């Protein structure tokens, strides 16, 4: 591989250095392929710079501040001072550590990383434009597209970086806003709304339907709704924004509810979190045989192969759910398929976590989707307040729900409560291993710990829970 005007070649060309892309590149390189990874910015993608990692870092700090100020009934009192700039500074350090780590891993496994932009000229050639504007054409045996997605705009309310901001810009604010309006009530809205509320912001959420977190089990969402109310977050249900104007360096959002009652919400920033759009432009897809679905995501099969047989797609660009965890797995599958291994994205379920307060984590089917899927089901519930461990930590808001077929095959698990994001992995593994309620109930869980709730919920579904 030599740079220059002449066409040079590689076995696998990976476009995009986020979770899907760098994982695919490293795995392909581990399997002795000559791999080039092209990334426009730095390695890490949305996850490292604009999503999972920055939000988790800031949420962690906000939780500590909140917990010190609100220790509950554990017999202590405290106060805390903070400078948000220092919290942001640490966020940059965490991000840098991860970026350097990924860069080192690529080097270690022999992935050649090129900073630039790739553009398909045909089904086996791509032009790479370097930051200095020079071009090289690369011939590849296989390509993996991992270009990801970007925040979607609210129709009629374009992002302007000043008042109308996306989740990335919200995470990048160097000052905690006094008033924040959030459009949409999906998981990003709930996570960032909760975080800013804990940092002292007055948060208002405008939601077009009568519920928040509509993709989650209502019983689970109820626990989070209660806490959001306690945090002073106001939710305007069945409402939609009508217009926006600025006044004395503040934004004023006019909203209307379903009865036509209008109100004005004054704020410093308006955060829009209404989903994502695919990064499918300016990469030359029209020069390949790749087909897109009606939302613009690349159509892939179980092996993550596109309709152009030598080209694969992984991560957000290959369609929902938009999760780094899904991208990691897809990246490995695509790389392994390329070298001829019998891999496939055949997972039975994909876990999803929300870093709300308390956390939500789910995997597989809930009651509603099981019934829609035509299953006869049995469910088991176990509340956190019946857990010794939760009582000890004063984290009693929460529950675990297990949904199974009547024969005991576990279809899904929903958790809301402290550390739900950690608890869910046992449930994911159970479903992936085709476990039955007896398998989960019959496993010894250390005591006193939160995961006991999983075994207890499984026992409840079998009709014989001890502790409730």
């Amino acid at each position, binding site marked *: 591989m030599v740079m220059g005007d002449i066409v040079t070649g590689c076995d696998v060309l990976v476009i995009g250095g986020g979770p899907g892309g760098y994982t695919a590149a490293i795995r392909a390189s581990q399997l002795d392929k000559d791999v080039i990874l092209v990334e426009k910015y730095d390695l890490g993608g949305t996850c490292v710079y604009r999503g999972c990692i920055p939000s988790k870092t800031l949420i962690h700090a906000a939780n500590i501040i909140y917990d010190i100020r609100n220790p509950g009934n554990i017999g202590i009192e405290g106060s805390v001072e903070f400078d948000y700039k220092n919290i942001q500074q640490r966020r940059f350090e965490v991000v840098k550590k991860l970026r350097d780590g990924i860069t080192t891993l690529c080097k270690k496994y022999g992935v050649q990383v090129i900073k630039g932009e790739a553009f398909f000229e045909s089904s086996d050639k791509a032009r790479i434009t370097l930051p200095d504007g020079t071009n090289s054409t690369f011939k590849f045996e296989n390509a993996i597209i991992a270009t990801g997605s970007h925040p979607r705009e609210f129709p009629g*309310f374009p992002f302007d970086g000043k008042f109308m901001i996306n989740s990335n810009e919200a995470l990048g604010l160097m000052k905690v806003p006094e008033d924040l309006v959030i459009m949409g009530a999906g998981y990003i809205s709930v996570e960032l709304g909760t975080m800013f509320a804990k940092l002292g912001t007055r948060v208002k959420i405008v939601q077009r339907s009568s519920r928040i977190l509509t993709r989650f089990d209502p019983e689970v969402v109820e626990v989070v709704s209660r806490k959001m109310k306690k945090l002073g977050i106001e939710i305007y249900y069945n409402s939609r924004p009508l217009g926006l104007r600025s006044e004395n360096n503040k934004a004023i959002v006019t909203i209307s509810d379903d009865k036509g009652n209008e109100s004005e919400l004054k704020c410093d920033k308006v955060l829009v979190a209404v989903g994502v759009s695919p990064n499918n432009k300016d990469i030359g897809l029209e020069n390949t045989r790749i087909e897109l679905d009606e939302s613009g995501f690349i159509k892939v099969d179980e092996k993550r192969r596109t309709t152009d047989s030598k080209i694969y797609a992984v991560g957000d660009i290959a369609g929902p759910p938009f999760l780094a965890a899904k991208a990691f797995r897809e990246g490995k599958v695509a790389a392994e398929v390329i070298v001829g291994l019998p*891999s*496939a994205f055949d997972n039975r379920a994909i876990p999803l976590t929300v870093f709300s307060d308390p956390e939500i984590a789910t995997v597989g089917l809930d009651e509603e989707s*099981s019934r829609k899927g035509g299953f006869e089901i049995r469910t088991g519930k176990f509340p956190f307040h019946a857990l010794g461990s939760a009582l000890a930590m004063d984290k009693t808001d929460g529950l675990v729900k297990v949904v199974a077929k009547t024969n005991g095959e576990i279809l899904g698990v929903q958790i809301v409560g402290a550390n739900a994001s950690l608890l869910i992995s046992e449930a994911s593994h159970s479903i992936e291993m*085709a476990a039955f309620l007896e398998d989960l109930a019959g496993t010894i869980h250390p005591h006193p710990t939160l995961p006991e709730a999983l075994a207890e919920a499984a026992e409840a579904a079998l009709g014989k829970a001890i502790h409730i």
Partner: protein
Amino acid sequence: MVDIKFPDVGEGITEGTVVKWLVKIGDEVKADQAVAEIETDKAIVEIPTPKAGKVSKIYGKEGDIIKVGSSLVSLALPGEEIKAAEVKVAIKSPEIKHVEVKPEIRLPEKIIEEPSKVLATPSTRRFARELGVDISGVMGSGPGGRVMDEDIKKFAEVKPDTALEALPHEAMPPIKLAEERIPIKGIRKTIGERMTKSLFTAPHVVSMDEADVTELVVLREKEKKRAEVKGIKLTYLAFIVKAATVALKQHPYLNASLDPQKNEIVLKRYYNIGIAVDTPEGLMVPVIKNADQKSILELAKETEELAEEARTRKIKLSDLKGNTFTITNIGSIGGIFSTPIINPPDVAILGVHRIRDMPVAIDGEVKIRKILPLVLSFDHRALDGAQAARFMNTLIDHLRDPDLLLLDVT
């Protein structure tokens, strides 16, 4: 504005499939620049534009079937402008202003994950793929119908036919396992049409014989290394092509075609030898032009090149036509004798099979000799068995005695 049409590329081709557009709307193209790759029944051809201009419209998408004479792209000729209506202008509003909109937000639908995929662990699912078993068709023997490794193993061992009968209805494998349907199109369709027409139009007679090529084997072994130095793979086929052209010159009725309209036999004084090549898409017949004027080494080189181009679908249409006689080299794969079908518009086709060690009686003694089986299918409308046999004799003489063959080299 001018429309660039799919031109008549000859060989009776009436339609083609757009494999790939090589231009997009807004591209400036030069005269003779290729605008599309089109797969015809014969090959993939690049269609050039006769004029320069700016692409303003592309008719159809990749995979579409396009008829000869219909438009491929529209060009705005130099001086013409693409209509404003076709250019999208992005308008950005820098200031926040009061806007009245009825927002239609499409929030992501509640994700209904595909309920209950196959009940099996990840390692078992992978094991099934390793054995090529569609796990959704396997009945599990584990608790609650969980599919175990043992089930996969058993399923893979059972023959497909008995599997269909032995398994209960709900565990019946999907139909695609027992049967697969391949659309007849492209080269496969052309082969079918041409062969059906040939076999049911020309009364075929097949003549079979053997050539003792012991000396040719020795010669070829000796010359092979020298050819290798020049980068040429010296094949028996090159010798056979040479011998065939010599024999065709002496027996002109085999290098001919029929003109049914005029009721005439057209004897050809040029010798273009078609070589049947097995490609992944099906049989293709590249043609070595003026084979009689080429040396054995040149024939070997050209055969190899054309065959490779045919296999990779890079071959030009002009290299697939103009045959006057065809040779099919079945020997490289197997079989002793076959009855080849004449490749129109030829009147004869020569099939060559594998050279084998055979006992041969020579002067009252049994000797082991290298024997090459030969078959000739010919069109009885153009010639008779005696002519065919004489042609074969000349051919066999030249293969038996390579010196004779070399003397004929022009």
